[in-house]
């Protein structure tokens, strides 16, 4: 009989090994599924396209990094709130508002050249995301309204607000009534850091943010504050932390970062505001955060992993006509295996030979 016995101390080895184990199990399960649904010849090539090609192909690899950047930024913000038990589920909405705010500034200064424009747009997008998340913070602090519901529902409001804007003030005057903005002029576009690809400076900024977040969580009292609040609220009071401030700050941080990601998407790959701005990054980032166990450096890797599943998934759709749900199956399995393997950190498996 197999028994799980609690460990006295969390296993350091398993903290690193369990993600690898989960990835292996995911790959194995994917292989089994492919064997069932595909011809023999195709199995290995689909497998290759899904898992390896995005890492080796000179077009797909930068695309992977392009996708990873917003996931990383949003995931980092969410992880901070999640540590404190503040569940911002509506990063997608804050992302959209951030994109609109940043984009609107860019469009206001249309054809104005200046190095100051991008920082200004970035600030506008962060403030936009913060403002949108602060609605949930205000309602939670003032009236104890559950932030999960508020943030989630405001996502739909944000998407509708985007289409209202695109049919109104932000619509391209020369765009034949298409609900799209003007294409941003050069000063409002993020610099490309890999010639010939869409990889923009946002990826570098995402990495910088994850280092800052790592520092904040590891070395700063704010990190302790959110961790203690999430794990033992009464102990947080004992330590003298103000729980309203914890709610406010974690929502402002996650909202602000989601807003910044929205601006990066608009001024990066999209180059304009379109109804296609929301890409579900805000929701997928929840998986990213949990895969990384809310650890900032872990999020760096988990966002790359999820981006791999996107890029690889799209590629097999195009190449082999497989359904788009391949990506979702893959992400779902990954999350399940991660959560399951995590039990090995706190428990050890013992094969019980003796009777009873």
């Amino acid at each position: 009989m197999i028994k799980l016995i609690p460990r006295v101390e969390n296993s350091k080895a398993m903290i690193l090994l369990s993600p690898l184990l989960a990835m292996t199990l995911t790959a194995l399960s994917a292989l089994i599924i492919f064997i069932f649904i595909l011809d023999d010849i195709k199995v290995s090539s689909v497998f290759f396209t899904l898992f390896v090609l995005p890492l080796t192909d000179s077009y797909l690899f930068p695309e992977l990094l392009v996708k990873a950047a917003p996931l990383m930024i949003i995931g980092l913000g969410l992880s901070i709130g999640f540590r404190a038990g503040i569940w911002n589920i509506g990063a997608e909405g804050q992302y959209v508002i951030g994109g609109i705010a940043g984009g609107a500034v860019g469009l206001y200064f249309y054809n104005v050249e200046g190095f100051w424009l991008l920082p200004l747009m970035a600030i506008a997008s962060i403030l936009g995301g913060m403002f949108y998340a602060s609605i949930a913070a205000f309602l939670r602090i003032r009236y104890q309204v559950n932030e999960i519901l508020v943030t989630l529902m405001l996502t739909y409001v944000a998407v509708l607000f985007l289409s209202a804007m695109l049919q109104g003030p932000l619509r391209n005057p020369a765009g034949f009534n298409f609900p799209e903005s003007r294409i941003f002029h050069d000063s409002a576009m993020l610099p490309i850091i890999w010639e010939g690809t869409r990889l923009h400076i946002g990826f570098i900024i995402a990495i910088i943010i994850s280092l800052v977040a790592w520092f904040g969580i590891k070395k700063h009292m704010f990190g302790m504050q959110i961790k203690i609040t999430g794990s033992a609220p009464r102990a947080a009071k004992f330590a003298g932390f103000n729980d309203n401030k914890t709610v406010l700050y974690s929502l402002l941080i996650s909202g602000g970062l989601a807003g910044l990601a929205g601006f990066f998407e608009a001024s990066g790959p999209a180059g304009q505001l379109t109804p296609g701005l929301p890409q579900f990054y805000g929701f997928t980032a929840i998986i990213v955060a949990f895969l990384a166990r809310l650890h900032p450096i872990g999020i760096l890797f988990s966002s790359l992993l999820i981006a791999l599943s996107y890029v690889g998934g799209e590629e097999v759709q195009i190449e082999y006509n497989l359904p788009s749900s391949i990506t979702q199956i893959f992400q779902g399995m990954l999350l399940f295996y991660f959560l399951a393997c995590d039990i090995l950190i706190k428990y050890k498996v013992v094969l019980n030979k003796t009777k009873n």
Partner: protein
Amino acid sequence: MNYQLEVSNITKSYGDLKANDTVSLNIKDSSIHALLGENGAGKSTLVKIIYGSLMPDSGEMRWGGNSYSPKNPFEARENGIAMVFQHFSLFESLTVEENIILGLDGVGLNQNFTDEILKYSKQYGLDVNPQQVVGDLSVGARQRVEIIRCLLQNPKLLIMDEPTSVLTPQEVSDLFVTLKKLAADGCSILYISHKLEEVREICSEATILRGGRLVQSCVPQDHSQKELAEMMIGKKLTELARSKINVGSEIFSINNLSKKSDDLYGVDLENINLTIRQGSIVGIAGVAGNGQDELMELLIGEKSSGDGVLSFNGQDVGLLGSHERRQLSMFFIPEERLGHGAVPDMSLDENMLLSRPDSSGMTSSGVIDWSSVASYSEKVIDDFNVQTPSSKMLAKSLSGGNLQKFMVGRELIRNPELLIVSQPTWGVDAGSANNIHQSLISLADNGSAILIISQDLDEILSLCEQIHVLSEGKLSEAVDMKNNGLEKISQLMVGGES
């Protein structure tokens, strides 16, 4: 000599840990037998084996001379073994009678037990009203309900787990009358406790366990309390004594503090007044649930107590948060260890940061200096004899006594001018309790003021020079201990006037 229960050479292991290692225990007919030992000594394991909820790895038991190996508590009850647990298993919304019926095997709610309950109630002085709702009863009355429930099964052995830990002195002496009567009528009692004075008062024999092994069985009256305690912990205890009581000027006062509770079931505090002087240890006695938690919250600063009611060194501190109060050298140790005074899933180092006056240097403008934190927690571990492999261990992996020593040490190394502590030795083994009391005393000897809120009256009596009683949210004046002090405290604890 006839034995009701003979337990010989019981061994029970959990993995590598031997919870019971060849333990033997013999309970005579009609006797009150004490089972003594610290937390983790193996008392509960042994009792669970006797009560049928655990199976021993080896060893045997005889019940009334016949071989006895219960497979479940049901079988134990059929044989005539009943148990009153430390934490009662009563439904608060049901009446006494309904609760009693629900606890009996094979009886339906439609049967009437009123007469029988009243019979036992009268016979053994167990005052209960069968029709009263349990939620309205005091802790002592709930215990009486549990005892009657056991008696209805006509037990030959009644196991009582720490029965007096929540009772007032009056309730304790009533209970003892009942227990003595029961024993005289032929029901043996296995009395689990760490209160040695009680054991010496009512038990005719005692079995002492330490680390899962039998230390010895003895007649408790042949030994002093101190000797019994030393057998329990396996080493010498230091005598508690203040070297010098140098009471200085007033350092802290509570002035007309009233506070309605936010909680429906909370206690409203009414017009509380208290003065504490430097170098003195002040105690607040009282039964749990009389406003201790509410008062502690306000003292720590987890809730604001408003203007002008708390004064520390002449400064109004009522509006300050707990961190600001620590900056002024007020420190606190709450009752709950896991989840309040410490975060269970965090290391001792991280827990060190819950109490972090800026002067400690553990943080500077918010940035944590982990090496400074670790050196403090290692100092606490060394100075306060906390048994743990390292300061990286999670708080929840420490035993209650060790974690409590850590929490006490964490505040004491700040050399507080005022320490406010709730239940300093609750659920803590005798050895650690002795250490903690010792360190509180030396803190006060060095001129600090201490306020102790405790339900453990012995603790209050042995440490405090000034004793108040909290009852239903009201705090008594300091009790004059020279004239029948104990009796007055007892009356105050049940809400009477002194």
